[in-house]
């Protein structure tokens, strides 16, 4: 049973919530339902981080995923077409092959994870506090941190250039 400072059933409820919402993203025909299901899934994942004693990641998850990425995706949905029709319009024909492939991958990976000795250390929560995390970030990892901000700026400029309307040639 999953242990920690919380009841094990909380984990199972949370896992069921995350997986059902993820399946909703894949299965809904209406793309807005998919987006709503995705937001619910992101919230569940934020709760998972909180249970894993990583409150900073939980808050960042809500800010970035639930707040920003979802909004951008919903904007993109509203700027593009809405499809209506049968399931064959929404799913590729290769679903027949992809479904057993995905199930096989899930089974193999689960078996590999469960039979490994990766969890031999027990249930003690070892994640650093927010203070420890910030010390780590701004001491040893300050160069990747700056690099990531550079990537963000480049991505923003790239997005503007890509999505801008072509100017009429004179």
């Amino acid at each position, binding site marked *: 049973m999953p242990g920690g400072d919380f009841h094990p059933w909380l984990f199972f409820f949370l896992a069921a919530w995350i997986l059902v919402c993820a399946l909703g993203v894949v299965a809904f025909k209406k793309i807005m339902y998919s987006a709503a299901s995705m937001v619910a899934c992101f919230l569940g994942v934020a709760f998972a981080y909180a249970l894993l004693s990583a409150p900073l990641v939980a808050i960042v998850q809500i800010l970035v995923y639930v707040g920003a990425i979802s909004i951008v*995706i919903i904007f993109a949905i509203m700027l593009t077409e809405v499809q209506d029709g049968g399931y064959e319009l929404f799913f590729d024909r290769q679903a027949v092959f992809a479904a057993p492939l995905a199930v096989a991958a899930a089974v193999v990976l689960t078996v590999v994870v469960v039979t490994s000795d990766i969890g031999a250390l027990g249930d003690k929560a070892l994640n650093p506090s927010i203070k420890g995390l910030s010390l780590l970030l701004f001491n040893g990892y300050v160069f990747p941190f700056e690099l990531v901000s550079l990537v963000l700026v480049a*991505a923003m400029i790239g997005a503007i250039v890509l999505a801008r309307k072509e100017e009429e040639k004179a």
Partner: protein
Amino acid sequence: MSSLYWWLTLAVLLFCIGAFGVLVRRNVIVIIMCLELMLNAVNIALVAISNFRGGALGAGTLFSLFIITLAAAEVTVGLAIVIANYRNRRTVQTDQYNELKG
């Protein structure tokens, strides 16, 4: 069985659902959403391993923060490409993105 196995199993299942969605859906925006699910699965695995194994002072948690940042950048550029493509071709269905076939 210790907790880490349960969390990693959750991550594996979420990752496979996301991969399945990427493979089967036709709308490119839904494919991007499924990509985000896969990134979230990896983040759950990183945070769980960091929490139950310690190691390198919790660098796994830090990595998940970097991944979240890069996912934001990826979504911005990806959706900009989708919008630009939609403006030219009036579609977001992958089976109609067949220009590169020549």
